[in-house]
């Protein structure tokens, strides 16, 4: 018996089912990537039936796809991080003006890609994805195309490309990566050597996403008091900067609850989510142009502080509850 016990101790510890990971996969990731794939395909269908920039059905389909993206943006590990899919879907911010240059180049015919739209995935990320389509639908410099113009072909090509990436992400999550997460720590799993690594990946992704809200979604348009940058607000063209922020926050909240469902283990985090959700909903500043108005600016700055505090509280509470600390952050570097 004694020998047996020793042998048992020497055997590698097989991964135990990790409730945290199961919840993240089943309650957060899989439904969200399925919804995104569905909305992206609906956008593709809508664009096939009409590419008219101001057509309500096309705009509604684009908005629904954008909403669904904000539900998966926190998945900063796995399929969205492979093959630069995150950037292909959502290349933003673009403070150096890559998008307009890339779209202009294609529309001017310098690049014959529109004759082979199925190869649109070869194009630079600045010409692909949700924000490129947003520019085509909402930017007055781009949205005056007719049904036989290159603009129409571009919207269709970009929508089809987006639907294809969304389907890939869905497929890989469902058929591969969900298992990679669930089998963290098993000998065959080289991605996550133990379940702590899988937890850490999720935890790091969540904190990184909140940092993105602080530094980019809010920080970019806020600029400095002397130099606010309203033109840098995300989705300013479609007038949904505030909506993006609210949906981003709602996504973080869902992911945090999947990570730590026990309210008692993250009291402050929960309070913060509730308070910030209310603050964001009350902004009444759809495109963040308020950064230039002292009073409205103050609200946005307060919201930014609140996001930063949320992140810091969450770091403390969730780190303790999950037994992990933050790993490398993709936003570090510049």
């Amino acid at each position, binding site marked *: 018996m004694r020998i047996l016990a020793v042998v048992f101790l020497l055997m590698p510890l097989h991964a135990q089912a990790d409730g945290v990971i199961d919840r993240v996969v089943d309650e957060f990731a899989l439904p969200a990537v399925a919804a995104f794939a569905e909305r992206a395909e609906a956008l593709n269908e809508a664009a096939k039936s009409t590419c008219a920039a101001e057509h309500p059905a096309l705009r509604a389909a684009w908005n629904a796809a954008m909403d669904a993206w904000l539900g998966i943006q926190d998945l900063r590990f796995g399929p969205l991080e492979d093959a630069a899919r995150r950037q292909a879907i959502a290349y933003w911010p673009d*403070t*150096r003006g890559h998008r307009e240059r890339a779209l202009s180049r294609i529309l001017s015919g310098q*690049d014959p890609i529109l004759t082979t739209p199925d190869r649109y995935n070869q194009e630079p990320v600045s010409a692909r994805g949700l924000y490129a389509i947003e520019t085509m639908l909402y930017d007055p410099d781009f949205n005056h195309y007719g049904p036989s113009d290159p603009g129409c072909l571009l919207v269709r090509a970009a929508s089809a490309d987006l639907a294809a990436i969304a389907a890939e992400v869905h497929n890989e999550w469902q058929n591969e990566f969900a298992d990679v997460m669930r089998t963290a720590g098993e000998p065959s799993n080289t991605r996550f050597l133990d379940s702590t690594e899988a937890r*850490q990946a999720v935890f790091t992704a969540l904190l990184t996403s909140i940092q993105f809200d602080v530094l980019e979604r809010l920080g970019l348009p806020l600029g400095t008091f002397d*130099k606010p940058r309203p033109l840098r607000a995300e989705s300013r063209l479609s007038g949904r900067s505030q909506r993006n922020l609210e949906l981003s926050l709602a996504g973080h909240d869902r992911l945090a609850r999947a990570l730590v469902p026990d309210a008692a283990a993250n009291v402050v985090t929960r309070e913060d989510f509730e308070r910030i959700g209310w603050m964001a909903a009350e902004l009444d500043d759809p495109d963040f142009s308020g950064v230039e108005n002292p009073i409205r600016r103050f609200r946005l*700055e307060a919201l930014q*502080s609140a996001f930063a505090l949320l992140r810091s509280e969450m770091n403390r509470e969730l780190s303790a509850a999950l037994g992990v*600390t*933050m790993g490398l*952050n993709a936003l570090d570097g510049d």
Partner: protein
Amino acid sequence: MLRSCIILVTTFGASVSGWASDRAQVVETYSDIAEAAYSDSLTMARQLQAAVDSLIASPSESTLDAARSAWLAARDPYMQTEVYRFGNPIVDDWEGKVNAWPLDEGLIDYVAAGYFGAGENELAELNVIASPRFALSGREIEADVITAELLSDVLQEAGENEANVATGYHAIEFLLWGQDLTSNAPGAGQRPYSDFVVGEGCTGDNCDRRAEYLNVATDLLVSDLEWIAAQWTDGGAARSAITTDPDAGLAAILTGMGNLSYGEMAGQRVKLGLILNDPEEEHDCFSDNTPNSHFHDVLGIQNVYRGQYKRIDGSVVSGASLRNAISEVDPNLANTLDHEISETLQAADALRARAADGMSYDMMLQVGNDEGKALINSLIDGLVAQSRSIERASAALDLAGVVLEADDTLEGAGDVFQ
């Protein structure tokens, strides 16, 4: 002073009680390498300064070539110091003076038609070399003489725009090469030496001011490197910061390696150029030196990991290393990370080889260049793989959470609102 040569080979078989002193030796080696590499960077910058002086004194093909060669040689040791950026606030706060990038070069000098600056940069086409007077945020600036103050205090990040880079390696690179207007064939920027000929024969106009600018920018590079090299000498602030608490020092080493690998290179510098297919996103875009600069970035990571740096004079600085420290707790991990860094270095070297063989980096970035894409992707994959091991190393060394030592935003409001 470089002490760690003497204490090499002391860490093997150390007991747990010996950890503290071993870790102290690791951070000493790390500081010694920093001191040596910054000092080498300074030496090479002084050689660049001498070459620039000759170019300005007698502009010709050969003096311009010599200045370009000196710039290229100066990049090699400097890029090996980039691993010190993250994790060392003293370095991070300073490095923008010397290596800020990407830049709107139209701020500095003439550019070709069709040039685009960054969005919202009203100075993107200032061309200060042609503008002895200009308006900046409603203020009239007199720039009759091009001075260090003009570059550092007025133009650098003017208008709160990071694309306004007036100083450092890349500003000098632009002055030596000019814009690289060919991205579908080999060939860097083609600035003629006559751009520096004062009086008759001057091309590009304002040759005197161009020479003045180049001279001031090169002097600034030298003085900035003098400053940082001094921070790593005995009693220097950067050395003290890293050696006071060896555990925190090890954490900073991992942070530097991890953030350079992941956030900076794999996430931004290498990846963005590729997925944007934009030669403007090439790190050394005027000189086409990017493969070399990536290579030396990775070599710097290896230096720090192995506790060994080969100086420009061929001598070697070495001592107790991070690798030793990890070996004590997890030899497999230590070997894996070492192997991964070697693979990444090979991937970067493959870029150099292909560039030497006729496919310059900007050609690799072209839409539809599958071979170039594969070459660059293999560098990115290597960087990501080694990042995971760097994260694991922090756990193995019981330094969990270290990687966010540099993450001020986690401390609440903090630096977020700068």
